[in-house]
């Protein structure tokens, strides 16, 4: 599934969306602990979180995530948006909870995936 399809389906608000990019989404991961995401999330997946500080962009780049979805109406810091623009990281916002977002993604066929030890 393409990220643009997920954007439409979940009615996500694009907060940073680089022109001409529409990556594939191979699954999803939800967590608010950065080390957990670094260790377990897979490349080409969407990450649902309520963390909105600049370091989420570093994690997204290192893991090669498709996009970050900020749940619960959380707004990113200005510096987070600046970093996301610099590094071409897609960030969406939503007023829905992480649970609801994950549920809607699952229903649409985007399953939870994680790195196996």
């Amino acid at each position, binding site marked *: 599934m393409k990220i643009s399809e997920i954007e439409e389906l979940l009615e996500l608000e694009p907060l940073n969306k680089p022109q001409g990019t529409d990556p594939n989404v191979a699954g999803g991961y939800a967590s608010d602990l*950065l080390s957990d995401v670094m260790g377990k999330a897979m490349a080409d997946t969407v990450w649902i979180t309520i963390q909105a500080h600049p370091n989420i962009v570093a994690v997204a780049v290192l893991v090669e995530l498709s996009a970050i979805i900020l749940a619960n109406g959380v707004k990113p810091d200005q510096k987070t948006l600046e970093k996301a623009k610099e590094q071409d990281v897609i960030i969406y916002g939503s007023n829905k909870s992480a649970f609801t977002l994950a549920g809607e993604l699952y229903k649409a066929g985007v399953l939870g995936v994680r790195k196996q030890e």
Partner: protein
Amino acid sequence: MLQNKLSYAFPIEASDFTKAGDAAGKIKKILKLAGLPATVIRRVAIIAYEAEMNIVIHSVGGSLSLDLTSTRVEMASQDNGPGIPDIDLALQEGYSTASDEVRALGFGAGMGLPNIRRNADHFCIQSEVGVGTNLEVWIDIGVS
């Protein structure tokens, strides 16, 4: 294959959460340019990120270094204190001395050093209170 060792150093500032992760990002780019396998790059990225965050969160400042040889990726971190009083405890999953403020940002879950050890083929940490902490890791290329 690389014939010579390539060496890089990255200074890391304490408590700078805006730049935190940048050095790990640069290390990842270098490895991608060197054409290393994705599994190796992922392991190095995890180690570099956690080592960088440890310096940012816990130390008064330090640096990361990367040495690339034909057979392995070597990384080292060093900081200028305050040092770890009980390394065995610090290596336990879930143990952390991070402040509540840092934890609220999603750091300090006590997963950093365990994540590093899990992803390294060689792992050595030495620390002296009042002096600093030195970490040395290798990741073998071609062994995932």
